[in-house]
């Protein structure tokens, strides 16, 4: 048995991976928006909108929302720790973060469900 990761280290790995994924998505987002702009001032906006409103893309949106929630809420936990909170109670902190991610992701899923199952 090798060294066992602490919860805080696992949270850190999740934080890094989600952060890198969001940065990657930022560039994807900019590329997609650039692609629909045409030099003569018109856009492919509506054509592209029809594509990205397909259920598979909406599922992708839910996944992205989850990744953003993990990064954002864990980030809040870390800022709280910088002010001295949730350090001795780090288990509670990580547990609270996971529950909040789950609840908000559930709400997001409910809101987007009509767009997925049409």
């Amino acid at each position: 048995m090798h060294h066992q990761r602490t919860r805080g280290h696992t949270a850190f790995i999740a934080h890094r991976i989600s952060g890198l994924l969001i940065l990657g998505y930022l560039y994807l987002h900019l590329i997609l928006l650039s692609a629909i702009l045409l030099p003569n001032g018109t856009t492919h906006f509506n054509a592209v909108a029809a594509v990205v409103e397909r259920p598979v893309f909406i599922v992708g949106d839910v996944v992205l929302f989850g990744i953003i929630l993990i990064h954002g809420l864990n980030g809040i936990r870390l800022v709280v720790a910088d002010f001295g909170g949730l350090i001795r109670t780090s288990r509670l902190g990580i547990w609270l973060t996971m529950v909040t991610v789950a609840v908000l992701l559930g709400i997001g899923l409910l809101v987007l469900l009509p767009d997925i199952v049409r």
Partner: protein
Amino acid sequence: MATEKVSSESIQAKHDLASSVSWSWILQRFTGILLLVFLGGHLWVEHFMNTSVHVVTSRLRNGIFVVLDAGLLITVVYHGLNGLHGILQETWAVARSWWFRYLVWALGLVTMCWGMDILWAFLYRRPFLVIG
């Protein structure tokens, strides 16, 4: 696993109070908190408001939405690239060279200009620079 040896002299070699605050650390927290507002707003607006091109364009003419999107762009680019720079600095000696931060800044500024150009295109129906 044995790590590289450090001596107390090398740790104590240079330290002055003026440079003992990490701006990138502070700004990473600051932009992180701002992003909760900007990104939360962005996701809300893009989902719960009508997203046809005319509505997006006319909505952007309202100052608050431009501030929201421009603010999001600036903070997300700083936060993302500063985070990436931090990861690289930890694991890659080249990223610790003095010039590397300018490279990251250059990439950041280019990305911000690119994003602003897209925003401009939505505002005035044509890109300010000709990209895309």
